[in-house]
């Protein structure tokens, strides 16, 4: 996947301002940044849910600019997105959730679908939940089932939207390991949009930092850890003040207190 000078705005509000990045085959890349930095918008552009105003966006060798709906759907069969809270279909069992794509996009007999679903659930350690409904799962389990559903047709590009949000340390570690293991097993390219710095530094091959719609830093986890860049330092070590100020812009404090 390749992005060059990608620009996007909602009306007058510029969200992405000339973003360029690459996700090579087989690599796990993290996109990090504060809230409102454009990470989710970037993910939606890559998934074809939004169209960039300018720039080049190539996914699985296909330029997404001006792509038709049918062609986009063909392309989407080769990519997958894990939503922040799983987005499991609540009216279907765990088994039917994982079988959903196989039933929709293939003519496989039910006996083979059954075996494939059990294999996918086994990969995420939740074969025993096949008969359960999504409401019976914990947050971490729901995300693992969603992961099994996402890899149902062995995608070439995997995207993860904030996969660690709201998880306890054990579930977080499990999801992290699964992301790495599945990426390596599928030979897919993966993009993880996340705030979780320490987990990502352990997990990914390369990191891009986004701020105000631009890539402000990038590098391998080692390079990021050693970075002297003040912005990267503040983000990685979670400092409250720095290039991203603690105080929202306002009139000077003394003036506000002592003025009329």
């Amino acid at each position, binding site marked *: 996947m390749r992005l060059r000078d990608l620009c996007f705005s909602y009306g007058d509000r510029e969200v992405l301002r000339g973003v360029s990045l690459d996700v090579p085959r087989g690599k796990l890349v993290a996109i990090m940044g504060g809230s409102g930095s454009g990470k989710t918008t970037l993910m939606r552009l890559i998934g074809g849910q939004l169209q960039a105003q300018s720039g080049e966006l190539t996914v699985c060798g296909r330029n997404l600019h001006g792509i038709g709906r049918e062609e986009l*759907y063909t392309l989407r069969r080769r990519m997958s997105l894990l*939503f922040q*809270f799983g*987005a*499991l*279909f609540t009216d279907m069992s765990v088994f039917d959730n994982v079988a959903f794509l196989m039933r*929709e996009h293939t003519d496989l007999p039910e006996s083979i679908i059954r075996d494939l679903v059990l294999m996918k659930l086994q990969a995420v350690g939740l074969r025993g939940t096949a008969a359960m409904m999504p409401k019976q799962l914990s947050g971490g389990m729901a995300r693992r089932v969603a992961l099994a559903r996402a890899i149902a047709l062995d995608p070439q590009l995997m995207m993860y939207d904030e996969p660690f949000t709201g998880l306890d340390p054990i579930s977080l570690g499990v999801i992290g390991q699964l992301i790495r293991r599945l990426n390596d097993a599928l030979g897919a390219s993966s993009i993880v949009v996340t705030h979780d710095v320490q987990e990502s530094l352990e997990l990914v091959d390369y990191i891009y930092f986004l701020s105000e719609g631009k890539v402000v830093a990038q590098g391998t986890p080692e390079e990021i850890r050693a970075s002297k860049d003040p912005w990267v330092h503040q983000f990685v070590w979670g400092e409250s003040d720095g290039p991203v100020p603690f105080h929202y812009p306002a009139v000077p404090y003394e003036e506000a207190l002592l003025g009329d």
Partner: protein
Amino acid sequence: MMLEGITAVFGGIGRGVVDAVWRLGFAARFLGMLLWLSGSCLRRFNLVMREIYFSGVLSLIIILVSGLFVGMVLGIQGYEILVRYGSESALGAMVALSLVRELGPVLAGLLFASRAGSAITAEIGLMKATEQLDAMDMMAVDPIARVVAPRFWGGVISMPLLAAMFSALGVLGGYIVGVVMIGTDPGSFWSQMQANVDFRQDIVNGVIKSAVFGLAVSWVAVFEGYDAEPTAEGVSRATTRTVVISSLAILGLDFILTSLMFRG
């Protein structure tokens, strides 16, 4: 100051009208797309069958009980009026005609809008709020074809069946009150009904009405759900809108259809 107030009022009305027309156009486009994408769900009819169960079968209790009570009330009121003219033998015809022509389709439609229409809107709205529709779209499965169309057709098919059952139970209710409780002659009750209810003019027109109401309620319900703001408050507002708009649409359409079908 006063001029500004008047301008603001007319501006508000104008904006409201423009918004309403824009939304109606959007709903019409949505219906067009829904019909265009209905092929796959009609080929996989098990998807529609499932929705007929949720919209139709699960609405049966309220429809049957309401039909029975409406028929019983018609029996009492009809007898009270007809007996004044010595025409109580026409009670069966009066009950049946009131039900198959008007009360069956209209009341079943209103109950269907409250019970099934609101449930369809809430379900689709919540699926949108929890990103299930987005997830489906990202999986290259069109949510309009897979989620919306089966619910729409499930509603369209269920509604005439529910209206027919409403009318049937209403006739039974009228019989219980008129014949069993009051003591009208049962032979007159059934023979007057048989002689005065015309299959094409009364029953077919009643079925057409209920099919049109089913289409209107299902259209409103799926559109409001799909267009709902993806928040708890947005879904709640959409559900309320479904009941209000569907009910008004049923009453408005009933007037138009009645004037076309029964103007003499």
